[in-house]
């Protein structure tokens, strides 16, 4: 075990101060130090994307980053999407179009899709499928995830 470092994470606009080992993964820090367990770990080797969050508005795998690397960045997780009981358009679209079953991969897909649509609101279908192929889902066969994200693309257009 190595000496712990002081780290401050900014997640969903809130600051979390913590002492963590340098090897502490960002996903673990978000889940355990910040108590935000909506971010899930599906593989811990960067393939499944269940741990996807937004870091300075870009989707990243939080299982492949150290907590210390996120110092100074603005992080967004699934808990930051809804405003109280009002769902974010991407959440509403997933609900309306049955874009989730067990719900385990869902936070990662929501953050991936949010990041992709914010960066490119007019993204074409082919490029969208390519981007959404970053993450794995075992329940939905992706059909309704794609349908939901396409619906959200219309809703989220500025």
């Amino acid at each position: 075990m190595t000496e712990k470092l002081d780290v401050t994470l900014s997640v969903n606009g809130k600051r979390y101060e913590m002492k963590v080992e340098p090897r502490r993964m960002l996903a673990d820090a978000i889940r355990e130090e910040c108590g935000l367990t909506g971010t899930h770990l599906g593989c811990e080797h960067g393939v499944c994307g269940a741990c996807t969050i937004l870091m300075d508005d870009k989707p990243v795998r939080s299982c492949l980053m150290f907590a210390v690397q996120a110092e100074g960045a603005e992080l967004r997780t699934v808990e930051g999407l809804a405003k109280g009981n009002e769902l974010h358009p991407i959440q509403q679209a997933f609900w309306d179009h049955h874009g989730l079953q067990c719900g385990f991969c869902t936070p990662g897909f929501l953050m991936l899709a949010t990041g992709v649509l914010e960066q490119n609101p007019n993204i074409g279908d082919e490029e969208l499928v390519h981007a959404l192929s970053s993450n794995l889902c075992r329940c939905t066969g992706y059909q309704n995830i794609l349908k939901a994200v396409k619906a959200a693309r219309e809703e989220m257009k500025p």
Partner: protein
Amino acid sequence: MKWVGQPIPRLRDPVLLKGKGRFTADIAVGAMAIRFVRSPVARGTICGIEIPEGAVVFTAADITDIKPLRPILHGRNYVPTDQPILANKRVTYVGEPVAAVIAATQSEAEDIAEQVMLDIDVLDPAIDVDEALKPDAPRVHDQAPGNVLVETSLKTPGFDAVWAKAAQVVEVDIRSRRQNAMPMETRNAHAVFDHSTGRVTLYTSVQNPHPIRTGIADVLGMPETDLRVVAPDVGGGFGQKMALVPEYVFAVWVARKLEASVAWIEDRNENLIASFHSRDQHHTVKAAFDENAKLIALEADLRCNVGAYSNYPITCGVEPLMAMSELPGPYDLREYSVRTRGVTTNTCPMAPYRGVSRPVLTLSMERIMNLAADRFGLDPVEMRRRNLITEFPYKTVTGSLYDAGTYWESLERSAEVLDLKGFRERQKKAREEGRYLGIGFSVFNERSGYGTPTFAARGMEITPGYETVEMAMDPSGYVIARIGASPHGQGLETGLSQIIADELGIEPSRIRIISGDTDATPYGWGTFASRSLVLAGGASKLAAEQMRERLNKIAGHLLQAPPEEIELAGGVARRRGHEGSVEITALARAAHHQSQLFGGGGPGLTTIATYDPAGTFSNACHSAIVEVDIETGHVKIERFLVVEDAGILINPMIVDGQIHGGVVQGIANALFEEIIYDETGNILTGSLMDFIPPTMSEVPTIEIEHLETLTDASITKAKGIGEGGTIGPPAAIINAISDALKPFGVEIFEIPATPPRIRQLIREAAKEKS
């Protein structure tokens, strides 16, 4: 308005969408970590285990008070296996738990686990199913000399005479490689010792908390009541999470031993190598046809690799016995000779995986139908028309009773939607341009929604089947239904609410379904085998009918009308054909607070019902149009069509979702996923990079059409839909690839049909030609 049949959004989704779901690892934050040290070799003798100084590490020597897991099957030449909780003196597969480290955090536990040194004398293992059957193969268990743990056979009396009259005999040799169900959430066990009661609560991602509790209590020798098993939000199961594993037992044992809160959260590598595998089967099947291309007899030798141990409670009979009894599927067959074997090897144990054996047996039968069609010069649709069962009820050669289905209609409709004739012209044109298109059909039926009458025939010591629902309406008029089934993503809560809502005349939003907690639900078997909507749905309907009668009686009293003339709808009770009504909430209030008025039946509103039917058969035709790149062996699925019949659809949106997910798992089975062992028993596919689950880019748009047969075999008239999606794709896709490669004389008999395999077959065929 009826709620059944409406595609209403699922009731639990907002919680999951907001990241507020509670999966086991979320609840376990802060618990001490368990890390298992696993065997790095497939077979060997443990000579020593070196434990780092000061570390808390348990080995077999520390847990002599725990009995091994010993699932029992009666008959079928079953040889029981004793699976130790931690490997004792010997290791039998790569990934077997040998020692368990306890530490304050996961990373510390992992650090210590790396320092635990295993001294193992390596022995030659048995890995491949056919190699393990050879006389000189290493013996996995002393008590099973030929490595066969379960074996049975059947031969109809008239078989030989009919076989001798065959006009054509078609033979296939089908090899299905090993798959992992791969739920997105890995397995886990979080055991919490309660100092005030001495009880333990086990939070664990399972499909069947009650049988899991029974199994753990049995091997620990503790009263079941002192163990509460909770399946909170469960991130997919697909069969992998319905068997008891040593890790759950150890977690409960160590929580009691240390009087502490502990958690094992499996990592993905552990899940891929050491959870459960399936579908590792080899079928040799011969089919005899008369001169009219009618199937007259079937001979089969079925070998299933069941791995190192039998699984509890279903046993390792699940694949071989299912393969034997259901091989003929939707086809009329009167003469059958079959031998089936479950073969033990030094590999990860086998457990049910969505579809259980039927993806493989459907591949066998549907390859036969295609080869026979060629032999007789018929198109694949006509070939099947001559053989599909069209008269119901139908008693099969293995004794199953098929209720009504649409076997032929589903195929006929599929050929129409895909425009088979038009496709043949397009295929011809494409071939002239050097492009290879193919079409494939796969017709199958699926036993679903079955209870103890059917399970009892399998001879398991633990016979699953019935489902019970306890229902209560509270004084505010809300309904709580406690179910023994244990949904984990299927949306069962929503479907059950729709069924109950129709019976009680209230909205689904006023209904709460409680599941997955042995303290809060009646004993039940959980969610698997395409059963929960049929079983728990049937029990919900029965319990709600009783509730309705109670409400009618109270309403009759208040409205001064005979109870049989009361109807409940839109939240109110009224006398048919009369003015005046009373709110159902007022009935609920009165039942609890003015019970002296109504007499009989006692106060309150609680009912209980159990449903335990023999089961029903769903059916479908899956079809695929593919294009094969002959240079690379890459297969592109151009269209994938499902025409299915699951009876009445309670919630069509959820049904389609089940089909989508199942089909993509089936596509993965046909083209991508494979657990590969080398000859020493080491797994070469220990990460998701190597196992290759499909992403959105690999899957086509799945087209779905529904047929609705109204069956009497299910009181809601709904049939099971959970597994069907997974069953059809391998046969449809492999038939389509073989059709595309006709010009090369290539026929595919092995799945997954990966690009290297396809290329190799094309090369070999070219060599043979030259």
